[in-house]
């Protein structure tokens, strides 16, 4: 199908975007990579009055490292971050998770911030942001604010972004613990994850992140050596798992029971 008609603006500066947002609010949508947005427009699940293209705003296309954090601008594509030379050393969890984001072809255009702003519960990048306790930088005519992932991610496709705010960047703290593992189960590599599971091991402390079960990424901490199978079974019941055309809640819980311990084991075995 074809999108419903909309007005199109290709912005040159962030100020232009925030001015348009102040005027149009929810009726306007940002076009970054468009890999989720264009699909929603083509299916007419969304009918915005105005699309604001931010791809030609130079200040949004940078990856910067400052104050122990890696800042990724709103126009940076997933494949550009994947090819960033410092990624494996500074953000090994993201290095493990990014190859699962869509396909080679969609990562060429899809942005890191766009995925965070869209906040699909099965997406790898929102899960990574929650795992690494990152933050989101939002700008509007009213000013700039920085929101931690835990407060930004409210639920399925829902975030703390106000209708007049642009996500200008996300920041990932540089990792000190390098033992990581990431796996997911999907119908086809790159499709929406039925579940996505990641782990970061620091000494005998394990941080486990689960996507695709609840409306937003779920993060839990465990200590190695305890009864992990039991703890993960409890977690599976707590998260319940949603039901969709790909899997039942019961199947999601079963997958977590199987994949969870395997991912933790893999992170603990990882040389880092």
């Amino acid at each position, binding site marked *: 199908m074809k999108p419903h008609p909309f007005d199109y603006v290709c912005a040159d500066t962030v100020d232009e975007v925030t001015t348009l947002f102040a005027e149009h609010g929810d009726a306007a949508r940002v076009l970054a990579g468009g890999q989720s947005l264009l699909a929603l427009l083509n299916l007419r699940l969304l009918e915005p009055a105005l699309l604001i293209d931010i791809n030609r705003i130079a200040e949004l296309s940078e990856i910067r490292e400052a104050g122990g954090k890696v800042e990724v601008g709103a126009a940076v594509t997933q494949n550009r971050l994947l090819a960033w030379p410092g990624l494996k050393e500074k953000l090994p969890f993201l290095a493990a998770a990014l190859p699962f984001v869509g*396909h*080679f072809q*969609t990562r060429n*255009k899809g942005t890191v911030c766009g995925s965070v702003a869209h906040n699909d519960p099965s997406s790898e990048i929102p899960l990574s942001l929650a795992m690494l306790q990152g933050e989101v930088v939002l700008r509007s005519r009213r000013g700039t604010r920085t929101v931690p992932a835990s407060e930004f991610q409210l639920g399925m496709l829902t975030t703390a972004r106000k209708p007049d705010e642009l996500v200008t960047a996300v920041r990932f703290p540089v990792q000190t613990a390098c033992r990581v593992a990431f796996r997911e189960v999907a119908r086809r590599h790159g499709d929406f994850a039925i579940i996505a599971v990641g782990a970061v091991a620091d000494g005998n402390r394990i941080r486990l992140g689960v996507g695709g079960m609840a409306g937003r990424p779920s993060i839990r901490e465990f200590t190695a050596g305890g009864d992990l199978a039991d703890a993960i079974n409890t977690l599976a019941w707590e998260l319940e798992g949603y039901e969709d055309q790909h899997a039942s809640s019961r199947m999601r819980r079963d997958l977590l029971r199987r994949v969870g311990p395997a991912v933790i084991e893999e992170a603990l075995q990882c040389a880092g």
Partner: protein
Amino acid sequence: MRRVNRDQRSRVSVKLNGRNVSAEAEPRMLLSDFIRQALGATGTHVGCEHGVCGCCTVLLDGVAVRSCLTLAMQADGRELTTVESLAGADGALNALQQAFRKYHALQCGFCTPGILMSFTDFLRRNPKPSEAQVIEVLSGHICRCTGYVGIVSAVLEAAGSVDSNAGGKP
């Protein structure tokens, strides 16, 4: 700031396979439709129109993207490369196309233009890919005829011949 209202048409200029061309488009026109209907280059195929099947994959500034998940407006001033660019002027197939023929990597051919363009970009960046890497990139396409095995063989063989074909077609 460039603004085009929904009922307006605006000129979009691109370099299509090395030739400067332009046509008018309204904001909601997809790049896939622009290429086929406005520029008349029908080698690019349109399948699902929501980024799943990969048929419409083209190179935008040399990078493989879904043209159905791109607006025509976004291509303005940029370089587009489509399947029409692969064979020589005399119709001679390039190395990747020849390998597709050799390994029966296509049957009906509907998905083929997208797959060829994906690997044109991928092989340029990864001249010596592993079989697993080829399969990962191929996961961004759906082929209902071949069962994919022939496509993987063809890409691996074409990758092997990339060096001897250096300076050839993109």
